[in-house]
C-alpha cells in the first residue's frame, strides 16, 4: 500500500501514449474518454489515443467502476427444490484507472468505510478495490463548483493514489506514491524529476489551491447541523427530487436490490438509489418518514457532514462540486453549509 513519498519521475507527453499502451498489455485501463457529444466519462480504453486528460474533471465519477449502476448479485434458475443459484464472481482482472482527480481518490476512501469497514465486507466491492490501481491527475483548473479545499482536500492531494501526475506543459511530473505505483512506471523510460520540475509542479498546485477560497470549517459543521433549522426549507423548497446530485456524487452509495424474474429463473441485482427520490423511504403501508424535500435535503447534508463523521470520523464529501454544477435548480451545498455555519448566505 502507501508509503511515504518514493520520489518522482518525468513522463514526457510524447511518451504518454506508449506508456498507456504498455499498461494496456497487462491491465484493463480505464480513463476519461469523450464519446461523441457526451460529457467526459471514465471508460475502459480500447486504444491509448482515446484518453482525454485535458479539461475539467469528468462529470461522472470513477465510483461506477467500483459500485456499478447495475450489478448482478446472483442468478437463479429452476424453481422449488430444483433451484440453482449462482452468485456473482468476486474476482476481478487487474485494472488501472488513469486521470483520477484527487477528490475522487479521496472519495473512494469514504466508500471503503462503508463497504469494507463493517463486520461484513462487501466482497464484490472488495474484489474491485484490491485489483485496481489509481493514477491521479492534479487539477490545474478547478471547475466552478469545486470546493475540495473547504473539506480538507486539495487539487493536488495524494490520498488514495498510487501515482499523481501534474501537467507541466510538455511533460508530466509523476509523484510515486506506492510500490504499486512505482511498478506501473517501471518499464517506461522516464527521467528522474529535477528540482525545477518539482518546483514547477508545486507552483501549479499552489495556483490551483489559490483559485478556491476556503468557505467554511467543515470539521466543525457536523455539530452545528440542527434538525429544525430554517436552512432546510429555504434551500429545499425548490428541489425537484431528482437524483442528479447523488448519482454524480463520488461518495454517495445507496442502492436498491431488485429481482428480475421470468417463469423459470431470474437475476438479482443491485442498482443505484438515492435518498432524494420520494420513494426512497416510503414504507409498504404508504407511510413516508421523509415526506418532502425538506426532510430529504436535511438527510443528505446530515448524512454527509454529521452521521458519517459520527460513525467513521470522516465526512462523506470531498468537495468535487459535481452536485453543485448538476443541480437543475442550483441548490449549492456550499451555500447550505455556509449558512449552517452561521456565515452569510
Amino acid at each position: 500500500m502507501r508509503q511515504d513519498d518514493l520520489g518522482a519521475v518525468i513522463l514526457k507527453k510524447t511518451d504518454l501514449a506508449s506508456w498507456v499502451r504498455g499498461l494496456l498489455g497487462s491491465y484493463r485501463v480505464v480513463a476519461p474518454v469523450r464519446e461523441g457529444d457526451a460529457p467526459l466519462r471514465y471508460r475502459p480504453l480500447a486504444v491509448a489515443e482515446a484518453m482525454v486528460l485535458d479539461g475539467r474533471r469528468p462529470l461522472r465519477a470513477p465510483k461506477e467502476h467500483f459500485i456499478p449502476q447495475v450489478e448482478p448479485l446472483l442468478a437463479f434458475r429452476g424453481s422449488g427444490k430444483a433451484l440453482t443459484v449462482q452468485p456473482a464472481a468476486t474476482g476481478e482482472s487487474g485494472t488501472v484507472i488513469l486521470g483520477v482527480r484527487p477528490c475522487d481518490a479521496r472519495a473512494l476512501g469514504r466508500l471503503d468505510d462503508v463497504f469494507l469497514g463493517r463486520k461484513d465486507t462487501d466482497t464484490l466491492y472488495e474484489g474491485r478495490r484490491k485489483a485496481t490501481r489509481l493514477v491521479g491527475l492534479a487539477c490545474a483548473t478547478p471547475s466552478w463548483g469545486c470546493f475540495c479545499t473547504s473539506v480538507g482536500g486539495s487539487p493536488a492531494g495524494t490520498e488514495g493514489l498510487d501515482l499523481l501526475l501534474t501537467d507541466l506543459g510538455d511533460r508530466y511530473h509523476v509523484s510515486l506514491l506506492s510500490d504499486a505505483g512505482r511498478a506501473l512506471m517501471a518499464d517506461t523510460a522516464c527521467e528522474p524529476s529535477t528540482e525545477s520540475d518539482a518546483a514547477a509542479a508545486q507552483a501549479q498546485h499552489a495556483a490551483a489551491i489559490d483559485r478556491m477560497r476556503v468557505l467554511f470549517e467543515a470539521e466543525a459543521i457536523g455539530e452545528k447541523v440542527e434538525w429544525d433549522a430554517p436552512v432546510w426549507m429555504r434551500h429545499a423548497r425548490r428541489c425537484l427530487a431528482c437524483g442528479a446530485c447523488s448519482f454524480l456524487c463520488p461518495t454517495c452509495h445507496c442502492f436498491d436490490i431488485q429481482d428480475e424474474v421470468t417463469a423459470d429463473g431470474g437475476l438479482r441485482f443491485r442498482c443505484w438509489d438515492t435518498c432524494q427520490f420520494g420513494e426512497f423511504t416510503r414504507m409498504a403501508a404508504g407511510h413516508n418518514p421523509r415526506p418532502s424535500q425538506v426532510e430529504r435535503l436535511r438527510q443528505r447534508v446530515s448524512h454527509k457532514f454529521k452521521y458519517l463523521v459520527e460513525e467513521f470520523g470522516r465526512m462523506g464529501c470531498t468537495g468535487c462540486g459535481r452536485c453543485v454544477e448538476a443541480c437543475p435548480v442550483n441548490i449549492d451545498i456550499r451555500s447550505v453549509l455556509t449558512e449552517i455555519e452561521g456565515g452569510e448566505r
Partner: protein
Amino acid sequence: MNKVETAIRETAARLLGEGRVALVLGYEAGSVPFRTVPAFVERAADAERLVWGPFCTNNLAVYLPKLRGAGRVAIVAKGCDARSTVGLIQEHQIPREQVVIVGVHCSGMVDVDRLLPDGSLAGVAIAAEADGRLTVESGDGRRTVAVGDLLQARCRVCEYNTPPVADEIVGDAVPPMPEAAGAFAVVADLARLSAAERQAFWRAQVERCLRCYACREACPACYCRTCFVDKAAPRWLSKASTTDDNWMFHAVRAFHLAGRCVECGECERVCPMDIPVSKLNRMLDREIRERFGYVAGLDPEAVPPLGTFRPEDQDPGGHGG
C-alpha cells in the same frame, strides 16, 4: 438598468401587497453569477429579491401542481412557462382562478456551457450592459459577448417568446426568435438517417442515462404521483440502467408528453449526461401538429388531442408507417 426586472418587482409587490396572491413564483440570484434559482416570495417586502435576465432558465410551472389549494399564486412566466401553465390548467392540475400569469417578453436564455467553453467559470464575474451584451470577467481576462450568440438551442428556435396567455404582461414587445421557422429542423436531420442509424444513435444516447429522472422532475407536464417507472404492479421496466430499459423510459416518457410538451427544453438542459431528450419530444410535437393541427399550451379550454377524437380522423391505411 433592467426595466423588466424593476417591473417584475413592482408587480410582485403590488400583487402581494393588495392580497391578490399569497405567493409569487419568480427568479432570484443563484450562488454564482450565471445561475438564478426559483424564488418563492410571500411578502411584498421580499419582492426585491426577484431578478430578471438571460439566466432565468427554469420552468417555474413545475411547482404549480404541488401548490394547488394553497392560495392564489402569481407565476413570472416566459412564453414556454406560460404555455406549461396553460397545459396544467387544461389538465385540471391547478384551477385557472388560482393562477395569475405574469407574462414576460423573452429574448432567450444563455447556454451556460457556451459561456466559457474551455474555462471553468470559477470566479467569473458577469455584468449586463445596457445594450443587452454581457461583460464576462474571468481568469483569462475580460470579454464582451452578445446574449444572442450564446442562446440555448431551444431558445433560438422558440416560436412563442411572447407569452400567448397572460393576466399581466411585463416588458416591451420583442421580435420573434431568429430561427423560429426552424423549430423542427433537428427532427428532419434525424429523419434523414436510415432506421438502423437512428436505432444506433438513440441507443448510444440512452446508454449513458443514469436514470436520475432530472428530465422528468424538471418537466411541468410530468406530475404523476406515481410514475410508470416506480410501479411494481405492473412492472414496466427495470430500475437498472441498461440500454434497453433506458430506451423504454425515454420512449414512454416522450409518448406520455405527446400533445402536451411545450418544448421548453428544460429536460435537455438539466440532463447531467447531455442526452438530447427534447429531440424526441419535438418529433412527436411535429406529428401532433401535422395530424391534428394542435399546439400545446395555447388555450386553457382546449382538450388535448389524445384525450379526444374526431370521426373523420385518418384511418390507419393498412400498412405500418
